[in-house]
């Protein structure tokens, strides 16, 4: 259940990112594309793709933290993301 909640939070946070950043992250992590393939697919330079992914992940972390704060303030429970990260079992 914790895993499902975390996935839902990540999807929601991803949806808040700019479209190009979201697309690059989706291609990298959901379609398992390498950087060069993403660059070719999107017509970007390799460096641009790396920068977009790095900044996109930091932006995603920021969004997740924001959502976590809202959740903890609103409900008074621990979020499954950063606050409850150590409870997750990642393979």
């Amino acid at each position, binding site marked *: 259940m914790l*895993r*499902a909640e*975390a*996935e839902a939070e*990540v999807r929601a946070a991803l949806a808040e990112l700019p479209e190009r950043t979201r697309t690059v*992250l989706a291609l990298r*992590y*959901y379609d398992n594309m390498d950087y060069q393939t993403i660059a070719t697919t999107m017509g970007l330079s390799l460096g641009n793709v*790396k920068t977009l*992914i*790095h900044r996109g*992940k*930091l932006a*995603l*972390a920021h969004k*997740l933290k924001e959502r976590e704060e809202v959740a903890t303030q609103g409900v008074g429970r621990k979020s499954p*993301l*950063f606050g409850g*990260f150590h409870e*997750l079992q*990642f*393979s």
Partner: protein
Amino acid sequence: MSCSLAEALFELFLDGELAAVQSERLIAHVDRCPTCRGVLEELRVVDALLLGPRRIDLAPNFSFAVMAEARALPPPAPYRAPIRAYLVSYLAAAWMLAGAAALFAPQTMRAVGAATLGLMRGAADAVSALVAVAGRSFGHDGSVLTAVLGALLTFDVALVAGFGFALKYVQPRLVERLRS
């Protein structure tokens, strides 16, 4: 190592593509720099969340809806070759051809019959008991035409018998095996 250089190496480090020497330097910097340590930890968390197994959420009634749709479809109709029609067509055509040849081209029929009989006699021992039976049963009087018609009749009788056997005994077993 500066913080900006460290941050530029984070992705390579997390992807496991950073050289060992650079990794050691990066780790040494991160150990000393709480800011970079926090950023690296955030990236690790995001990586773990993005790379984790994703669960596909199905509608609550998904299975029921799929099964209901499957049941509503018409039952599948397997292709059935019109074997009876083929058999009847073959028999009619073969006997009409043989009759026409016997009536209108007896000389040609005799030549074809002689060739056929020669082949049958030559291969009777090794190839086909059916042909051998036909040759012995109908070819003893020396009439080529009789031998050919006899062989055709024997073949047709065997064909019809084989078809009947297959229809009665083989087909039900095949259907049962396909259903199980």
